[in-house]
């Protein structure tokens, strides 16, 4: 079913996807995702000049031109904000617009100077032409992608430092400047390799999207690199297969849309950071909180002497939110209510007392440690009792009691 030609292209795009995923992860961590877009657009003038000088469409010549102008663009984007009041975003947009515009102008010059036959290929670079990938080109892409992936894997320690804290890298033994240059060169090289296959705009997509999708699955550097490479490769495979089945679909955009599909899936379904899971977490936490406050409120007024709470009074002082909490807690069996009064059930009372005690202890502990670790705050009583060792709870309880009596 898969022709040998498709197989070669498949290998090429898979390697390409892997490489883009790896580089993209690095760029995402340095918050430079859009740099990929600027660099991709900026290769055009380099390609044109290489074509004018070299006079041929041979990939290595054009590739060197593209690489040089990509590096020029990257260094301009990082240099301008340092020496002028131009900000990073404006520098990126300006470099992109100017260099792409210059490239378009050069394409026009080439087309009108009688070389139009061979210049048609330059036009193709804008949108890519995976289907027409030659066997030799596919091998070239594949091998370069593998080499670059190996470089990234070999230098992962240095890259981690420079991604996480560029200034720390500067102070430690790691030569931050050369690592920075290396990263930019890797990005530029990746983009240059990907250009003929997917075109100017979509190269940036291949760099940005898999990394952004991978971010939903992991918090770790290695995990991010791995997931991002995997998603990039998967997009390459899926996209190439789909476009080989439907001949009228160009492979580049299909690869990008497969990556987007992976992104959407990750966005929604990833455990922990995915939208659905976070939405559920948030809701249950909010409900727990409200219930806890509500039960605590009733408990306070019961301890204050009244054995039951006037339902009307409670409702008057409350919002729609409170009313929902009330019905929830009635359904959960924590309180019983008749038209006029609300009363804690024994279970409800037990829960309220337990929650109050746990919170008290927790606050005491936070106070004594003054810990402001945000992960450790706003916990339920079960969590609190789990986290603190029993003997610590006892000590804390003692100190609370002492303060209460003194």
């Amino acid at each position, binding site marked *: 079913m898969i022709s040998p030609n498709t197989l070669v292209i498949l290998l090429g795009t898979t390697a390409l996807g892997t490489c883009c995923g790896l580089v993209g992860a690095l760029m995402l961590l340095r918050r430079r995702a859009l740099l990929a877009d600027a660099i991709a657009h900026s290769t055009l003038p380099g390609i044109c000049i290489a074509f004018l000088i070299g006079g041929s469409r041979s990939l290595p010549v054009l590739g060197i031109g593209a690489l040089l102008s990509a590096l020029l663009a990257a260094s301009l984007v990082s240099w301008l904000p340092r020496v002028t009041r131009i900000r990073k975003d404006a520098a990126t947009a300006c470099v992109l617009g100017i260099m792409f515009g210059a490239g378009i102008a050069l394409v026009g010059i080439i087309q009108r100077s009688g070389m139009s036959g061979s210049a048609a290929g330059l036009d193709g670079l804008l949108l890519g032409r995976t289907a027409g990938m030659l066997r030799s080109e596919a091998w070239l892409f594949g091998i370069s992608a593998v080499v670059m992936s190996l470089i990234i894997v070999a230098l992962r320690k240095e890259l981690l430092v420079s991604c996480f804290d560029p200034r720390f890298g500067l102070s430690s033994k790691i030569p931050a400047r050369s690592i920075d240059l290396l990263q930019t060169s890797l990005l530029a090289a990746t983009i240059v390799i990907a250009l003929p296959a997917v075109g100017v705009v979509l190269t940036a997509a291949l760099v940005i999207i898999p990394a952004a999708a991978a971010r939903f699955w992991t918090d770790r550097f290695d995990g991010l690199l791995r997931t991002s490479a995997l998603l990039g490769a998967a997009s390459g495979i899926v996209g190439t297969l789909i476009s080989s089945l439907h001949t009228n679909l160009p492979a580049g955009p299909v690869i990008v849309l497969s990556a987007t599909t992976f992104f959407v899936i990750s966005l929604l379904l990833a455990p922990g950071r995915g939208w659905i899971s976070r939405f559920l977490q948030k809701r249950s936490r909010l409900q727990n909180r409200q219930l806890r406050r509500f039960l605590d409120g009733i408990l306070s007024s019961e301890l204050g002497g009244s054995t039951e709470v006037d339902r009307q009074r409670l409702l008057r002082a409350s919002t729609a939110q409170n009313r929902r909490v009330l019905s929830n807690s009635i359904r959960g069996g924590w309180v019983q209510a008749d038209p006029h009064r609300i009363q804690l059930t024994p279970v409800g009372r037990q829960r309220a007392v337990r929650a109050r005690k746990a919170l008290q202890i927790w606050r005491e502990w936070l*106070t004594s440690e003054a810990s402001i670790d945000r992960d450790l705050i706003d916990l339920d009583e079960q969590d609190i009792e789990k986290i603190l060792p029993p003997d610590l709870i006892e000590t804390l309880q003692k100190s609370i009691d002492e303060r209460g009596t003194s």
Partner: protein
Amino acid sequence: MTTTAIEIHDLTVSYREKPVLWDIDATIPEGSLCAIVGPNGAGKSTLLSAILGTIHPSSGWLKIFDQPLEQSQELIGFVPQRESVDWDFPVDVLDVVLMGTYSKLGWFRRPGKVQREWAMECLDQVGMADLKRRQVGELSGGQQQRVFIARALAQDARLILMDEPFAGVDAATEEAIRQVLLDLKNKGRTVVLVHHDLQTIEHFFDHVMLLNLRLVAAGPTAEIFTRENLLRTYGGRLTLLDEAAEAVRRIRTGRSRLGKDR
């Protein structure tokens, strides 16, 4: 009798599901000078944003002058943290102060002569009238701070929030800000500000809120500003803070004595 300027009930604010403020209940009476005190990362600026209504709490509510925040049309004066301002922005000093008059102007109207004079008056109060044509980035840190105070004055609001107005300013600016604060207090305005210098709180502010993610204590300075409460706010680090303050004092006095001897 005093009315309440701000009433905070059961306020929890989360940033990406992690609480930054937790279960805050407090009231600030009208006409008071209230300092919000706490260690770095305690959520002080977040609390100001919540009062301004620029972030949505994940639970709880706020009332400004007995009006729920969402419905309140009350103007709130605001002095942002210096770091959060874009100093390369092409505006001059007078422009910034005039921004304070925008919300009373309404749509389509430009600030006119009346607003200009009013803005100059406010600039004069902080001693910055001479520099009205400077671009804001060309000012010193203290002058920048004073421009924003003048803008808050130009807003002419009953409630004014300031995010660390005393951070990193020179002595002249500090004095100017103090004077402005006292004036505002005499006019019965409510001023809430994030403050760092524990030494000056007792003498200057009549209200404090001690904050460390949760509210440690809030109320009149005399009752609340105790060593025990501070310990509870800063935890074990207060001793460190004490030591640092003591060391600084020793250096200062030592130096001035040296100066006199010679």
